């Protein structure tokens, strides 16, 4: 299977989202890509049009990281910060996560584990939110297409009204 098709994003328990993805590379390279700022800023960019002008990582327990993204043309900025709680090189990272814009209230705790098999690495990311409500709101983005569709329909109606 192409590694691109191995992405999964599912709810777990009351307050978690679990994401998994395979990579066709040994785990050390994946770990480096997650923890070295000069590498992180080259891939953690989301959709086209975003750059990462700020990418600072103090890789030690109690150390913090700071990411800021900027949209090339719109100039919109989005920031995130957090603190490392556990670091086991090439195997496991636990850190907190808080968006500047507070998409969700409070902090989330992110646990990343890397498992290597036959030269392939499976990345598992568990994001623990502070409430079920928060988790469900975030999940709507990926699971409840119906909800998104209804928002889109509303937007269509709005667009028609504006164009009249």
């Amino acid at each position, binding site marked *: 299977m192409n590694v*691109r098709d191995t992405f999964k*994003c599912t709810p777990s328990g009351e307050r978690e989202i679990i994401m998994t*993805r395979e990579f066709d*590379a040994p785990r050390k*390279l994946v770990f480096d890509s997650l923890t070295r700022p000069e590498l992180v800023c080259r891939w*953690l960019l989301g959709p086209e049009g975003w750059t990462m002008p700020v990418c600072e990582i103090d890789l030690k327990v109690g150390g913090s990281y700071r990411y800021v993204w900027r949209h090339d043309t719109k100039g919109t900025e989005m920031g995130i910060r957090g603190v490392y709680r556990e670091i086991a090189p090439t195997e496991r990272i636990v850190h907190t996560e808080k968006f500047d*814009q507070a998409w969700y209230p409070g902090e989330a705790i992110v646990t990343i584990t890397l498992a290597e098999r036959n030269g392939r690495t499976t990345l598992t990311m568990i994001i623990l939110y502070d409430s079920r409500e928060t988790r469900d709101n*975030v999940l709507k*983005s990926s699971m409840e297409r119906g909800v*998104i569709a209804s928002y889109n329909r509303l937007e269509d109606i709005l667009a028609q009204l504006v164009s009249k």
Partner: protein
Amino acid sequence: MRSPVGLDATFAALADPTRRAILARLALGEASVLELAKPFDMSQPAVSKHLKVLERAGLVSRGRDAQRRPSRLEARPLAEATRWLADYRQFWVRSFQNLDALLEELKRNGKKQGRASRPRKRK
């Protein structure tokens, strides 16, 4: 960018199907509490309660007309919430695809360096 509290309130307001239906109705044009209550088969106080939530979230504004106080849809917060919802999963899908490309590059570089630094024993 709106205040964080604003976006949280938007999501809370949109979580309710009746409130989404009210918004869909208001997308067709402004309406009074009475006009909203009729098609939804709800009491006026119940509609007023939902409208207050929508108003606090910035999704709806109320007219000055003392008698009717018509409700009107405010589109901007809705557009922001929609964008965030659609973007979250896409952010990771796209980022991981970038990471595939970066890892290929790192593997190639590693091989090159490996060849250069490893003493040749055979041949």
